[in-house]
């Protein structure tokens, strides 16, 4: 209005004499004489802050008045606004929320605190909308975030009985989601959450796999693993917005602890075996798919994939040969999945299995068959899997009790011995058949202690088999039916010696693979230093197993000895390929 009156002067005189324009001059005068007046400045500020405080504590204030005052500041210029209002406002807010958050943290558990922390954030945004400078929004929000979240982050996450770990254990999806969205706002918020989750997961996983109780039943063991996997998957999807970094943290934790137990590959194979043997009847195709997809997930975590392969093949062979597989389609599907993961190596040759002296009659037939087979098919290898397969034997007990016994190969070998002897000790049987002791013991137990199948009597009657214990044919054996099927007491898990043997075979198999990798790499690079060889070899083999640097070094030295490689004479850190 004043400007309108003095318009002429404003346009001409002021411009030529380069004085301040009326409007601006007016504002400056207002600022200097009123707003910054010693009697007004402090009082004004304090009143404003006081009103904000009142509103924060729940009172209703005159928002319109606030808006107008703030607008006045804004009109006076950015710097006035900041110095005279915004900065003190932010400081006072910080103070206020510091106190508030301290109050909350002492009185609430984590979940409640998070709920309480959400409110101020919304409130302040609203406040800005109503009467503050829009530019202040970001600043006040970060003040609140800092006071309410950042400063108490560690304490919240680690809170006993209500912190992150507790939420994870109890599937508190809502609380977790709230924590995620709040912590996401602040620096290192999500990092903190993720790290604590990872630590917990690893610790829990480690306890799970190293607990001897839990390792007793392989199927249970794997079921637990799958359960945990499902749980964390759900948490990450539901509460953590399927955040990739959390997925990765979860995956790396699973990979870490699954491989802590060296029997994991074996157990996973046994789990698969269990599913394919029984219990799938009546289960729909789709469910099978789902279970196998989950198994594949666990498989990917395994470092000793070649170990898994060994067991898988053993179990598969047993299933197929004993006709116990429930669905050939299911078997095929799984093999396809495994092949896709591992490439061609998964289905390459397996080694022949266990020794056994067959009775003369049988070996003659075996030889005849072998010459026939190799005669008609060139380039094939025939190896007798003597621990598989069955035989039908006609037996006469006592005077006239006749039966046809359906037995395993091993059982057949043992039975035939008794055509020439009435009584044999365990040691004699072992020497004659050369059947590995754990298999032989199971074989004898299945023919001496199982009701209705006790074709043998053991002296002494104890279930344990000692070297000198002997066996005789049970002349009093009777059975309801003519045909008697004698199964073998099947041990699901490997015994200790069997385990050692499998381990040993896996180690032996790894050696040529490592050497092949070394030679391949050196052939291409000609000269390479030690660290790089280790790195490259490990990389090349990682889809099969985790190569041990010491083992790699051993193989390199062996190759040096066999003149495949040499050390560089000038720089002995380098290896050189010898063509």
């Amino acid at each position, binding site marked *: 209005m004043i400007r309108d009156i003095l318009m002429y002067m404003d346009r001409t005189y002021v411009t030529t004499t380069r004085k301040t324009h009326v409007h601006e001059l007016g504002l400056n005068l207002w600022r200097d004489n009123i707003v910054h007046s010693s009697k007004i400045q402090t009082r004004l500020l304090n009143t404003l802050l006081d009103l904000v405080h009142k509103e924060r504590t729940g009172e209703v204030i005159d928002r319109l008045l606030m808006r107008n005052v703030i607008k006045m500041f804004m009109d006076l210029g950015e710097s006035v606004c900041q110095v005279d209002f915004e900065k003190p406002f932010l400081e006072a807010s910080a103070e206020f929320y510091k106190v508030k958050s301290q109050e909350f943290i002492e009185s609430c558990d984590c979940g409640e605190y998070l709920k309480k922390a959400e409110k101020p954030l919304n409130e302040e945004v609203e406040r800005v909308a109503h009467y503050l400078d829009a530019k202040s929004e970001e600043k006040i929000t970060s003040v609140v975030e800092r006071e309410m979240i950042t400063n108490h982050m560690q304490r919240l996450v680690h809170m006993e009985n209500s912190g992150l770990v507790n939420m994870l254990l109890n599937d508190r999806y809502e609380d977790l989601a709230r924590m995620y969205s709040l912590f996401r706002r602040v620096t290192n918020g999500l990092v903190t959450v993720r790290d604590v989750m990872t630590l917990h997961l690893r610790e829990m996983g480690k306890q799970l796999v190293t607990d001897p109780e839990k390792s007793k039943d392989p199927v249970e063991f794997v079921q637990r693993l799958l359960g945990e996997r499902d749980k964390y998957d759900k948490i990450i999807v539901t509460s953590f917005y399927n955040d990739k970094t959390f997925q990765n943290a979860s995956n790396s934790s699973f990979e870490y602890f699954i491989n802590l137990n060296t029997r994991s590959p074996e157990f996973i194979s046994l789990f698969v075996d269990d599913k394919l043997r029984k219990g799938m009847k009546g289960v729909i195709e789709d469910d099978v798919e789902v279970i196998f997809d989950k198994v594949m997930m666990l498989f990917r975590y395994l470092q000793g994939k070649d170990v898994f392969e060994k067991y898988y093949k053993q179990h598969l062979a047993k299933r197929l040969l004993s006709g116990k597989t429930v669905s050939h389609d299911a078997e095929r599907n799984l093999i396809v999945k495994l092949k896709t993961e591992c490439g061609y190596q998964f289905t390459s040759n397996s080694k022949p299995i266990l020794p056994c002296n067959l009775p003369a009659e049988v070996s003659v037939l075996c030889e005849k068959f072998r010459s026939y087979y190799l005669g008609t098919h060139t380039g094939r290898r025939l190896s007798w899997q003597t621990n598989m397969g069955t035989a039908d034997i006609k037996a006469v007990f006592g005077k006239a009790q006749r039966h046809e016994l359906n037995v395993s190969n091993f059982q057949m070998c043992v039975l035939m011995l008794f055509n020439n002897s009435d009584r044999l000790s365990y040691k004699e049987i072992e020497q004659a058949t050369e059947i590995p002791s754990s298999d032989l013991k199971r074989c004898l137990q299945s023919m001496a202690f199982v009701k209705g199948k006790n074709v043998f009597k053991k002296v002494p009657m104890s279930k344990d088999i000692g070297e000198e214990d002997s066996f005789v044919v049970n002349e009093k054996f009777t059975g309801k039916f003519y045909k008697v099927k004698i199964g073998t007491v099947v041990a699901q898990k490997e015994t200790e010696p069997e385990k050692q043997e499998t381990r040993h075979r896996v180690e032996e198999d790894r050696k040529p693979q490592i050497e092949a990798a070394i030679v391949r790499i050196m052939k291409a690079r000609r000269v390479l*230093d*030690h*660290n790089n060889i*280790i790195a490259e070899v490990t990389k090349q083999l990682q889809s099969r197993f985790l190569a041990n*640097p*010491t083992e790699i*070094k*051993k193989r390199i*030295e062996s190759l*040096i*000895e066999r003149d495949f490689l040499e*050390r560089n004479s000038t720089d*002995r*850190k*380098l*290896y050189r390929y010898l063509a």
Partner: protein
Amino acid sequence: YFHFCDDSVTMCVGTASSSKKSSKETDAIDELFNQYANTHSHVIDPEGIENLCSSLKVSHTDVRILMLAWKMKAERQGYFTLVEWRRALREFKVDTISKLKKALRALKEEVRTPSNFADFYAYAFRYCLTEEKQKNIDIETICQLLDMVLGSTFRAQVDYFVDYLKIQNDYKVINMDQWMGFYRFCSEISFPDMSNYDVELAWPLILDNFYEWMREKQA
């Protein structure tokens, strides 16, 4: 015996074209050779070497004999051929036992020069490969050899390493690579602290194991 044929050919050629002085020299050298050589095989055999050692007044396990063999580039342990004998004595310019004795003392210094020593050290290993196609040497022999060859310069390393070799089970024999590796170890790694040793480098595995063993002992 094939060696003899070669020798006789060389001998003929040698005497035909050399000057009067060197043929006299050669004669003296050859005569000295004949004093110790086996009359049937015409080489100095183990028994001959023993006699030579008595004359020289050194033990036949003395490192100087090994050094002499190195100078001769002797190929077969326990035997010196005429060619090999001549090679060394001509270089020394000696033709009597007492002169040879003196030469041996100087030889010790000559071998110790860094360039010669690496060569001598490698030679010592090869010299012990007595069987055809043999590539490795048993632990016991290695221990003796280490003591003989490195004992005076790297006493501590040799003592500890020998102890280690005797108690470890990973290796029953040592190959050339490991042998040379140990010499490098002695020359490059401060001992006994071994602070500059790095197991992640290309040291032979046996030395990595030795290092770990030493660390455990020191802890």
